[in-house]
């Protein structure tokens, strides 16, 4: 079966690949582009570890048909750091022990980024809601919630 050409922006860089029909965006990112930061968890939309931003909006890459991102902008955890420096969210996750096994962390960080991009000073309830589609089996969520709140208040301190 013929492959389909696909072009989109990946973390600010134009990429062009060929995909098989029905390939999901997660497979395209990991196996064709080599961005291993979004993880495969459930493949059903239940765990959130494959979360990415498409045109700034949180999506599950495992449930996104790769062809539907043609001409759009896809952001993954790989694009979060600023040069050699960690993003404030990544720093807050490290400082607050918000990553244990680390498997949920890419999705948690992208869900948190989606929240802070449109709501820089969220309440605790808004943070809980924002990460409600992401499952963590290690931390009990509290350190993650605290980390997102710390990153938000850190932003305010800098401003």
């Amino acid at each position, binding site marked *: 079966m013929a492959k389909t050409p696909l072009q989109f922006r990946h973390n600010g860089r134009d990429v062009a690949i060929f995909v098989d029909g029905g390939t999901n965006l997660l497979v395209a990112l990991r196996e064709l582009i080599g961005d291993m930061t979004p993880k495969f968890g459930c493949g059903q939309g239940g765990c959130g570890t494959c979360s990415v931003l498409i045109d700034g909006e949180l999506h599950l890459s495992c449930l996104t048909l790769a062809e539907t991102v043609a001409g759009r902008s896809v952001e993954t955890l790989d694009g979060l750091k600023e040069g050699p420096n960690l993003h404030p969210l990544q720093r807050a996750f490290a400082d607050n022990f918000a990553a244990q096994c680390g498997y949920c962390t890419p999705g948690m960080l992208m869900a948190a980024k989606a929240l802070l991009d449109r709501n820089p000073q969220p309440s605790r309830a808004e943070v809980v*809601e924002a990460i409600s589609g992401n499952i963590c089996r290690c931390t009990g969520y509290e350190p993650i919630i605290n980390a997102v709140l710390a990153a938000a208040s850190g932003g305010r301190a800098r401003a």
Partner: protein
Amino acid sequence: MPVTVKTFTSTHDAAAALSSDRSARYLGGGTLVMRALNEGDISISTVVRASDHAMTRIDATGSRITLGAGVTFARILVERDLAFLHAPARSIGGPAVRNMGTVGGNLFAPVPYGDFTVAMLALDATVSVQGGLGGREIALDEFLQSRDRQTGVLVLAISFAKPGSAEAFRYRKIARIKPKGGAVITLAAHLPVNGSRIVGARVALGSMAPTPIRARAAERALEGRSLDASTISAAAAAAVEGTSPGDNALASAWYRREIVGVHLKRLLSGQE
């Protein structure tokens, strides 16, 4: 296994492609079809898409509301005119699922999903479908009864009359995980009042049968009466009639039958 992806600008062409190929599925937000492909569902060999903007249109200005099948739950949550639907929209998935999942796709979501359809059923919604031979309107109730045979048609939109007042429409989802989780059961009621009497009572239940269903016995108990304690008790006692829930990891069929009346009573009494 690779599948063929066909994208059409017109819904007419997309419907023709769907109706001519039994192994074709329409891809909306992806939360059902991509999941099936990820699980290796070999019954799907063609994925059909339509880029027609009519599929994502919301018309909520008049007394009759129309939601394009491709409208996402996230979009409903930012529509002030659709405030009465914010509770069902918010009860679905996390933010990513709400950014992807659509009103049309929800009509096909199996138990324990399909919460929004329960709300639509209580509002007596009508589904606009496009088949190979043309378009037609079909009552949601009827659509759901033959849902398994509807894969060859394209759902274009869903429409319903706006509730007369905010109190007339009520919704409740029982889930073990908050704020996100599959439903133990889902309940919605539309209780238009004329004077002090309920006229045109609708009660819909999710996860109490393979598809969302109307609780007709409960509706009969409410019809023509005022919403007092004895009416509420009668409706609650009748809630389980005609249901056929199944067992799953969230709850047993026995448990669902036991609690449906309890939660209908709370819904009708306005209890949290």
